[in-house]
């Protein structure tokens, strides 16, 4: 049974205000029937140092990814995982995390690959909750397992594969990494292996819009007007564009994917989770270097 949607004037301008909850809302709904709170962090131990009461941990590395194939969970494994966290198909899931919700957005994106209807982000994530002096605990919640159905993963609506990206060169592409990663400058010290990709630069014609342009200092999302300024005026996107976002492994670009899809309401936004760790090592694909997007012919 879904939990009521937050009516918050601060979210009213967003295309899908129902995809966000505020810290105030969450504080007053903890323990509601049908609500499951999940924490998803970059740091695998952060949850154990203290988390929002009743929240369960979900780890992007050890739980959301398949440990053998570079891919997400299979449908069966996803059903088992969610059941073990006490989530049913009709649960309202609120996800929050560290690093301005990068990994929380990433988890939300994986939930959407499996079509989970009601999954929301805690605006401001872990940082805001703690900054406001709200309570955290090391006590682990008691979880009653649930039955989650086996549903087919949809790898087309919100996800882009490399061949689709190759075909998308010249169409709206957003690179959300830092300007140094985009231009292909290397900042690592001599004698240290760069364990990432074999080439540095960006996908030709991709515009550089670092993920943080969508976030305020307190880790909340910028207002709709501010987001329009960044993505429409700044990067030249249009409200009916078909956009692909990418970063290094797909986490920062999930944050941008969320902003473009749920806050600005673009009709089609896909996250290229292979991102630069795949593209920058692929044989035979073009890249561009420097601070300009480059042209379709650049190779």
């Amino acid at each position: 049974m879904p939990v009521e949607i937050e009516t918050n004037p601060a979210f009213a301008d967003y295309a899908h205000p129902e995809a966000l909850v505020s810290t105030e809302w969450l504080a007053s709904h903890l323990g509601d029937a049908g609500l499951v709170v999940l924490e998803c962090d970059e740091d695998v131990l952060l949850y154990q140092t203290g988390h929002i009461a009743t929240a369960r941990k979900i780890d992007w590395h050890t739980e959301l990814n398949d440990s053998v194939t570079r891919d997400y969970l299979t449908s069966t494994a996803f059903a088992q995982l969610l059941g073990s966290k006490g989530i049913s198909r009709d649960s309202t899931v609120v996800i929050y995390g560290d690093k301005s919700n990068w990994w929380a957005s990433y988890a939300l994106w994986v939930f959407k690959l499996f079509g989970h209807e009601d999954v929301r982000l805690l605006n401001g994530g872990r940082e805001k909750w703690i900054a406001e002096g709200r309570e955290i605990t090391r006590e682990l919640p008691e979880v009653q397992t649930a039955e989650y159905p086996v549903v087919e993963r949809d790898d087309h609506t919100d996800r882009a594969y490399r061949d689709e990206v190759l075909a998308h060169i010249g169409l709206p592409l957003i690179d959300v990494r830092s300007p140094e990663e985009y231009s292909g400058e290397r900042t690592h010290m001599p004698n240290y292996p760069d364990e990432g990709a074999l080439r540095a630069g960006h996908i030709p014609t991709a515009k550089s819009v670092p993920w943080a342009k969508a976030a305020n200092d307190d880790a909340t999302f910028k207002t709709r007007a501010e987001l329009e300024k960044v993505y429409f005026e700044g990067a030249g996107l249009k409200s009916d564009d078909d956009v692909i976002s990418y970063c290094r492994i797909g986490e920062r670009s999930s944050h941008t994917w969320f902003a473009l899809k749920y806050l600005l309401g673009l009709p089609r936004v896909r996250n290229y989770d292979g991102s630069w760790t795949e593209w920058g090592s692929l044989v035979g694909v073009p890249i561009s270097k420097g601070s300009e997007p480059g042209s379709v012919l650049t190779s």
Partner: protein
Amino acid sequence: MSTVSEKLMSLVEDFSELSINDRLNLLLEFSDGLPELPLHLADHPDLLERVEECQSPVYLFVEIDENRFGRLYFSAPREAPTTRGFASILHELLDNQPVDEILAIDEDFINRLGLAEAISPLRLRGMRAMLHRAKRQLQEKSIAVRS
């Protein structure tokens, strides 16, 4: 006092005997127990080297004392408990040990802790980078001391 390699073996045993969840809890204990920087470094953050391979800001500094024992100091924020845990393990194992023994340790022990299953291999890269940088600093300083 036990040698570095004896300490290593016992640490590998401690971790690998535990369930995956308890390995995380032991790492959390290390994380909680990372000592603060000594005063002479806390006042001079410029002396510290940043471990660029870690996404969280972690810094290290090594010294060699008059008996050729290495001193290792680490600083990492509370918001990065895994990184603090790695730093704390390295501090516990290697601080105040003979330089030659520290330089001789087999870096492969990191793989034998059984942490890859608990936290994923990718996250262990930070620990390897910390050890690598600590050893390099020690090596550079030990050459400087000799010459």
